[in-house]
């Protein structure tokens, strides 16, 4: 058995890279910081790959089942004998897989950014925060206990905040970063309370104990507590709330499209490939609990995933901002993953959904990162985010064009690209589990193909736009990551994922269901053809269709007015009807009460001043009458004896 002790270096290297670039970045050559960041990431990637290799192929299995290995653990904060936070490394199939995903995408993004951010003022800051993010994200996935997850959960949130707000002199970026942080923070409140309840009923934070399918944690807290659901169900629903926030599930998705204000590499890394799937990861991490202890919560996960998926896909069809389309597509794809988890059971054949969801997560990371980086490339070339201002770019940017097409095919689920395999398995799982959901997901698959190719055709075909400056292909440092990711998107589908990543660690057979795969591919093709018809050539068809849909189109275009509702709730209700009154109450009522006591004292003081009239006889009068009153009091009290 190899000790995986070196894995602790993964976050440690990144942390020091962050500190070093952060403190010394301003004082050295600006490109050096990029190099340092990339080199440390390269080291981390090598380590991750090595870990993955030794875990999956050499040491990880015991008795045919992948074990949870904790090579490193140190106590960080002790609450009580049983409740303590440890910082450690937990290796199991999903965390190792996530390490690979994170390090790969992050490395690509680092390399890409060396070129992309070249002219940026905050170059060192950017790389320092990238390191911080990668550190937090790796910390999150290798967490040994739910509190460690929470710690890094918050840290990825803040690095996301910092990176979205990279262009801090742009009010829109500032607003977007704020929104992202606050919305996820609100979701984290649910997560935190969920943790509190979990810790209260199980008395532990440790994942190993919590997720032991034969352990006591599964059976605890199953008594009905509140509104017909068990305590455990409530706890897991609250934890899922946190996941929904981070993974932009409806109705907490509103921050993600705005988060596109950040630099595009950031969107690729954080808001497409890694951080946003943290929610999925966490549900997967706690999957035994969900599956065995609180099936209701798991259903909720599935339904929320399905609904969000459809909802976001519909919106994506109407948007014109390239990055926003990708953002909604991300939301939609994460919905897929959530659904995959939601329709999964624990172990064996039932665990197909889990495995498919993880598989999709893996594939999605590759092709979505690719999409974003391509988008970055496009934006870099044309200096515009809106797809209506682009067209015919295939001539100018061949590499971007091809890689983008591969990614589109992958996301649309066209065989043999990676998306096909994972999406197919999710659909199979859904089909076996819940017919209704599977119908919904078929529709989403079609919509996905449509809107992605709508984007593809509009940008690369369509009209020949006249550009102010002729667009050019991106430099090599940006092109290589695209190529690498394109290769990954094309090929990762062939990985026999079921052998490695499953809910209970033992391999799952992934049978090929023709009755699901064929219709799915057909639907996708239909979507692509429709998009081709509408957008390959410049035409007024799309406009006609949208105007014929009228109000419906507008509602979808306006993203179902969710943002407006949020603004109404925050600005009008919380600000106007809570905060302002609280501030008013504090100043006018509480404070004035205190001032009033002082004023009253003064008032009395003025009122009684006539006693001191300066008249000698009045003094004597008060004296004599005061004496008489005192005498009466004395005599009165005497009677009691």
């Amino acid at each position, binding site marked *: 058995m190899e000790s995986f002790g070196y894995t602790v270096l993964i976050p440690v290297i990144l942390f020091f890279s962050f500190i070093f670039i952060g403190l010394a970045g301003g004082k050295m050559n600006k490109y050096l910081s990029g190099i340092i960041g990339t080199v440390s990431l390269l080291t981390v990637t090598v380590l991750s790959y090595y870990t993955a290799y030794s875990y999956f192929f050499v040491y990880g299995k015991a008795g045919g089942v992948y074990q949870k290995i904790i090579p490193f653990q140190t106590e*960080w*904060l002790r609450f009580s004998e049983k409740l303590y936070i440890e910082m450690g490394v937990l290796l199991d199939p999903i965390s190792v897989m996530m390490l690979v995903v994170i390090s790969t995408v992050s490395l690509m993004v680092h390399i890409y950014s060396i070129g992309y951010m070249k002219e940026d003022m905050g170059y060192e800051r950017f790389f320092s925060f990238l390191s911080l993010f990668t550190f937090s994200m790796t910390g999150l996935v290798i967490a040994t206990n739910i*509190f460690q997850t929470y710690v890094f959960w918050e840290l990825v949130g803040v690095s996301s905040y910092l990176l979205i*707000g990279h262009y801090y*002199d742009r009010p829109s970026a*500032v607003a977007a970063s704020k929104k992202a942080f*606050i919305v996820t923070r609100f979701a984290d409140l649910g997560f935190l309370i969920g943790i509190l309840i979990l810790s209260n009923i199980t008395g532990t934070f440790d994942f190993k104990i919590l997720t032991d399918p034969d352990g006591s944690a599964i059976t605890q807290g199953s008594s009905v507590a509140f509104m017909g659901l068990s305590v455990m169900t409530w706890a897991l629903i609250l934890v899922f709330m946190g996941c929904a926030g981070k993974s932009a599930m409806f109705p907490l998705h509103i921050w993600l499209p705005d988060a596109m204000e950040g630099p595009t590499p950031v969107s690729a890394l954080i808001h497409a490939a890694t951080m946003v799937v943290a929610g999925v990861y966490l549900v997967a991490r706690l999957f035994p609990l969900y599956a065995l202890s609180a099936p209701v919560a798991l259903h909720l996960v599935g339904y929320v995933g399905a609904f969000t998926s459809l909802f976001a896909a519909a919106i994506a069809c109407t948007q014109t901002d390239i990055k926003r389309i990708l953002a909604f597509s991300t939301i939609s794809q994460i919905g897929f993953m959530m659904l995959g988890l939601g329709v999964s059971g624990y172990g064996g054949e039932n665990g197909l959904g889990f495995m498919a969801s993880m598989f999709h997560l893996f594939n999605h990371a590759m092709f979505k990162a690719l999409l974003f980086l391509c988008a970055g490339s496009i934006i870099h070339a044309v200096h515009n985010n809106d797809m209506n201002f682009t067209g015919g770019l295939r001539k100018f940017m061949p590499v971007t064009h091809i890689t983008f097409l591969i990614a589109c095919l992958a996301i649309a689920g066209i065989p043999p690209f990676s998306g096909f395999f994972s999406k197919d398995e999710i659909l199979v799982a859904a089909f076996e589990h819940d017919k209704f959901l599977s119908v919904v997901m078929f529709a989403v698959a079609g919509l996905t193909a449509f809107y992605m190719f709508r984007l593809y055709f509009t940008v690369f075909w369509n009209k020949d736009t006249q550009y102010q400056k002729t667009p050019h292909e991106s430099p090599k440092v940006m092109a290589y990551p695209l190529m690498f990711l394109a290769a990954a998107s094309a090929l990762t589908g062939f990985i026999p994922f079921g052998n490695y990543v499953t809910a209970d660690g033992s391999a799952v057979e992934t049978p090929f269901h023709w009755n699901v795969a064929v219709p799915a591919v057909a639907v996708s093709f239909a979507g692509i053809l429709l998009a081709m018809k509408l957008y390959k050539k410049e035409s007024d068809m799309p406009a006609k269709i949208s105007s014929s849909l009228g109000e419906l189109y507008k509602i979808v275009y306006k993203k179902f007015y969710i943002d407006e509702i949020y603004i109404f709730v925050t600005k009008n209700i919380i600000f106007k009807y809570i905060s302002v009154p609280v*501030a008013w109450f504090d100043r006018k009522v509480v404070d004035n009460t*205190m001032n009033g006591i002082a004023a009253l004292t003064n008032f009395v003081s003025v009122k009684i001043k006539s006693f001191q009239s300066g008249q000698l006889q009045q003094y004597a009068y008060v004296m004599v009458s005061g004496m008489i009153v005192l005498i009466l009091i004395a005599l009165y009290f005497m009677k009691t004896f």
Partner: protein
Amino acid sequence: MNILTLFLIVPVLTVIAILISRTKEQIRVSAAVGMGIQLIQSIYLIFAYLAERSRGNIDVMLFTKTWKWFESMNIQFSIGVDGISVSLIALTGIVIFTGVLTSWHVDYLTKEFFISLIVLSTGVFGFFISLDLFTMFLFFELAVIPMYLLIGIWGSGPKEYAAMKLTLMLMGASALLLVGILGLYVNSVQTGNPEFTFNIVDLSRIDLPIEVQRVFFPMVFVGFGVLGALFPFHTWSPDGHSSAPTAVSMLHAGVLMKMGGYGCLRVAMYLMPDAANEMGWIFIILTTISVVYGAFGAIVQKDLKYINAYSSVSHCGLVLFAILMSDKISSNGAVLQMISHGLMTALFFALIGMIYERTHTRDIRFMGGLMKVLPFLAVCYMIAGFASLGLPGLSGFIAEMNIFVGAFQHSETFYRVATVIVCSSIVITAVYILRVVAALLLGPIKNEEFNFLKDAVWFEKASTVILIIAIAGMGLAPLWLSELISESLNPIIQKLSLLNIY
């Protein structure tokens, strides 16, 4: 010589040194040196304490020393420390030292300023080392009074009003407190204790009748609670903090408000556990309101210091809330929160002071984009903000998590519901912190004149860096501090939980 007496002797020597100084430079240097020594010995005290503990000394209080003072009243000058006071003394050492550094530029009546500041800090040090309620009360008032002059003379805005209000409200609170401790004293003759006493250690061995506790627990709790910004007696805080000069805001929010929490824990809860369990719920409601109300109040403020003052109300409310849970984890969290809030609010006020000196306004509506011109201060401000909203890796997170986890272990639903409500403050905190950060530091520069601002100078950098190191150190490696405190909480919690029903 008892090491603790040094905490009182050094300030006296410093004051003498300041008195005989001739130039402003000499005054500053002697103040900084004196307070530097205080800082060093307060850090040393932690190690000395740990060494003594590891030597197997299991007394409740270490380094104790008692002098008879007023024998016929059995009033002693009794000092000693446990883990809680040691860590709060370290906090005080840090804050007063950085406070002196931030006041480097005080030009008007420099001598008097530093003397008042040092007298104030002496009161705080004395408060934390006292084991006798009489001396404790003495130092409590000693710490409050210089505040009047400090705010009144060197403050800004409606300083006279604010100073008077702050002083009177705190002294009014001490009226309640005084009656409370006299109540303890008068009822201290019980079985096992033949003589009236103010000594906390002696008092803790007595089981006071519940009727007595019922009367005096609220008095002591409110008395200290006012200093800890207990709703609805917190209104001195926004006015006071906003008018006070930088160092005073730092010390006041950073340390003085902690005396409230410490007193509640050490006197109210420790000495009157029955009443604490019985009447705790009233104050739980008040502190819950404090936490949420303070946070909501902070959202709409426009003055930087007001925002911070309301946030202090919220954070200090959390301290009292946690103490009232009479649970070891949350009490540990309470002490951690005191330290954490002390550090970060000191940092906040220091930074606000520095920014104010440059921009001459504290109104966030007229500011923006300072990140461009004052990168150092801006980054520090953001770090303070993150600490305040409970970012892991900084001190606030540790404290809050201890409080939430601990409070949620309570068996009664009422307490858990209160905990959930209090938890929600983390979101509201995020809202107002980010709002300020966005309005103040980010975005385009609103005022052309701001383009010519100069970033921090050496003493400003020194003071902020010290505070940030402390905040991050506590946030990254919380275990030793938390262990230091929690071991000392044992006697208190034992006393409380012996009587708990669950």
